[in-house]
C-alpha cells in the first residue's frame, strides 16, 4: 500500500508529460469550442469576435424555421427506418455466418469493405449508379425526393450492415456453447433457441448496434451532402425554401455557411438543440435497452 501511494506521488510530478498534452489539446479541440458555442447560441453574431446578447431569441427563431422542423422530421424518419433495416439485416447476416457455413470469412470481409470508403466518396459512387439507373426514366437522384430518401437508405444499409454485422458476430460468438447445447437437449426448436437463448445473450450487442445506428442516422452528414446535397428544394409562397432531402446536420451547416451570415446565431442555437437531441437519444436508448440485458 505504501508503495502504491509513493508511486502515485512520483507519477504526479510527471503531470506535464502524461496528462497535460492531451488536456491542452482537449481544451482547444473540444472544451473551449463547446462552451464558446453554447454562449454564442444566445448571441447575434457574424464572426466570433463581434457579438450582441439576444437571450433566447435564436432558439425562438430556430423553432419557427420551417426548414429546420422539416429536416428534424425527415431525419427522425430516416434514422428509424435505417435503424430497423440495418439491424435486422446485419443480425440475420451475422447469425447465418456464425452457423459454420463455408466461405463465412470471405463473406465477412466483403460485407465490411464499404466501411473503409469515406462518406463523400460513397455518395459520389452511388449518385453515379442511381443516376445511371434513373436517367432511363428521365429523372435523377437530385430531382426526385422519394429516390433521394430511399437512395440514402440503400447507401447507408450497404455501408453499415457490415459494421453492425461485425459487432453482432462478436456477440454471437460469446454466447455460451453449453447453453445452446442444453436448449437442444431439452428439445427446443432452432427458432425457440434463437429467441429464448441467443437473443437475450446478445442483448449487449443489440443495445450497442441500435445506439450506433440511431445516432449515426441522426448525425449523418457526408453521405447526405454528397448524394443529394438536400436537393430538390421547394420554394414557399413567403420566399423561404425547404430542401426536401436535407437532414439536420446539413440544415445546420447550411444555416451557418449559407448566404445569410446574420443567421449564424440561429445556426448555433440549432446546433445546441441538435446536440441535446443526439445526447438525449443516446442516453435514453442506452438505459432502456440495458434493462433488458441478461444479468451475468
Amino acid at each position, binding site marked *: 500500500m505504501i508503495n502504491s501511494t509513493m508511486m502515485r506521488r512520483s507519477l504526479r510530478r510527471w503531470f506535464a508529460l502524461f496528462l497535460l498534452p492531451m488536456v491542452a489539446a482537449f481544451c482547444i479541440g473540444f472544451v473551449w469550442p463547446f462552451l464558446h458555442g453554447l454562449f454564442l447560441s444566445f448571441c447575434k453574431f457574424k464572426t466570433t469576435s463581434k457579438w450582441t446578447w439576444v437571450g433566447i431569441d435564436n432558439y425562438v427563431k430556430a423553432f419557427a424555421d420551417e426548414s429546420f422542423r422539416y429536416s428534424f422530421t425527415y431525419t427522425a424518419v430516416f434514422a428509424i427506418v435505417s435503424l430497423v433495416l440495418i439491424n435486422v439485416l446485419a443480425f440475420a447476416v451475422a447469425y447465418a455466418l456464425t*452457423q459454420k457455413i463455408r466461405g463465412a470469412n470471405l463473406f465477412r470481409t466483403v460485407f465490411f469493405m464499404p466501411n473503409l470508403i469515406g462518406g463523400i466518396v460513397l455518395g459520389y459512387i452511388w449518385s453515379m449508379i442511381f443516376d*445511371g439507373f434513373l436517367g432511363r426514366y428521365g429523372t435523377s437522384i437530385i430531382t426526385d425526393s422519394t429516390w433521394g430518401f430511399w437512395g440514402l437508405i440503400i447507401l447507408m444499409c450497404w455501408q453499415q450492415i457490415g459494421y453492425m454485422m461485425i459487432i453482432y458476430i462478436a456477440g454471437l460468438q460469446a454466447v455460451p456453447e453449453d447453453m445452446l447445447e442444453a436448449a437442444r437437449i431439452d428439445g427446443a426448436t432452432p427458432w425457440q433457441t434463437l429467441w429464448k437463448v441467443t437473443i437475450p445473450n446478445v442483448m449487449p450487442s443489440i443495445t450497442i448496434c441500435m445506439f450506433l445506428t440511431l445516432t449515426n442516422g441522426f448525425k449523418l452528414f457526408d453521405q447526405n451532402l454528397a448524394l443529394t446535397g438536400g436537393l430538390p428544394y421547394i420554394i414557399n409562397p413567403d420566399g423561404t425554401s425547404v430542401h426536401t432531402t436535407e437532414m439536420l446536420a446539413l440544415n445546420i451547416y447550411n444555416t451557418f455557411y449559407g448566404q445569410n451570415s446574420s443567421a449564424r446565431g440561429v445556426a448555433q442555437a440549432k446546433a445546441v438543440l*441538435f446536440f441535446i437531441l443526439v445526447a438525449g437519444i443516446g442516453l435514453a436508448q442506452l438505459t432502456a435497452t440495458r434493462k433488458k440485458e441478461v444479468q451475468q
Partner: protein
Amino acid sequence: MNNLSSAKKIKTAVSIFFAVLCVIYVIPVFMVVLNSFKINTFVKTDTFAWPGGEMFAGWDNFIKGMTFGNYPFIKSALYSLVITLLSTFLIIMCTSMAAWYINRVNSLFCKIVYFACVFSMVVPFQMVMFTLSKTADVLKLNTPWTIPIVYLGFGAGLAVFMFTGFVKSIPLEIEEAANIDGCGPVRTFFLVVLPMLKPTMISVAILEIMWVWNDYLLPYLVLDINEYRTIPIHVQYLKGSYGTVDLGATMALILMSIIPVIVFYLTCQKHIIKGVAAGAVKG
C-alpha cells in the same frame, strides 16, 4: 443420417446465397472500375455498360485524373496520408499516457477529465464546428502539420475511454515490481505498461485511421482549402461542379483513392475487424 444431410444441404444453399449477395455487394465498386475506363459522355448514358469499343478510354481518365480540378491528386493523397498518420500517432501516444495517469493517480481533476472525455463522445461535430474552426485559425492549427492537434482534441474522448478501460485491468503488482526494480514513472510506462497496451493501441489506431482518413468536414473547415486539400475535400470539390465535370476522370480518381484503402483493409483485415468489435463493445 437423413436429417444430417438435409442440414448440410441448407448450409450449402446458404453459402450459395451469400456468394451471390457478395457479388451484388461489390457491384458499386466494380462500377467505379468500369466507368473509370469509359469516355466521359458515356458514363451518364451507359453507366452499366462494358467499356468496350467506342466507349473505351484506356488510361486517359487516369492521366487526366492526376491533375483534375486544378489540383494534383498526388498532393491531396499525400496530405491525407500525413494528416492521418500524424493524428493517429499523436492520439495514441497522448491518450494512452493520459489514460494511465488518470487511472493511476485518480484525483478529482482526473475524474473530471475522464468525465469530460466520455461526455465529448456524445457531442456531434456541428455543435462545435463554427467555434472550433475559428479557434484553430487563431492558433494557426490550419496546416496539415498542426491539424493533428485538433484531431487529438476532438477525438480524445473515445481513445481515452478505451485505454482507461484496458488500464484498469492491468494488475498494479506489475508496476510495483518495476518500481522496486528502480523504474521511475516514465520508464515504467514506456517499458512495462506500453507493451501491454499494444492490442488496445492497434484497435484505437484502426478506429482513428478510419475516421481521420475519411473525414471531410473538419479538415474542410479548418484547413486553408486553396493550399491544402485532403482526398474527401478534393472529391467534393469536383462534385461541386457536377454536370460540367468529367465523370470518367472522376471515377478514375475515386478508384485511385480507394485502391490503397482496399489494400490496407486486406492486409490488416484481422486487426480492423477486431478493432471495430473492441471499440463497439466498450462504446
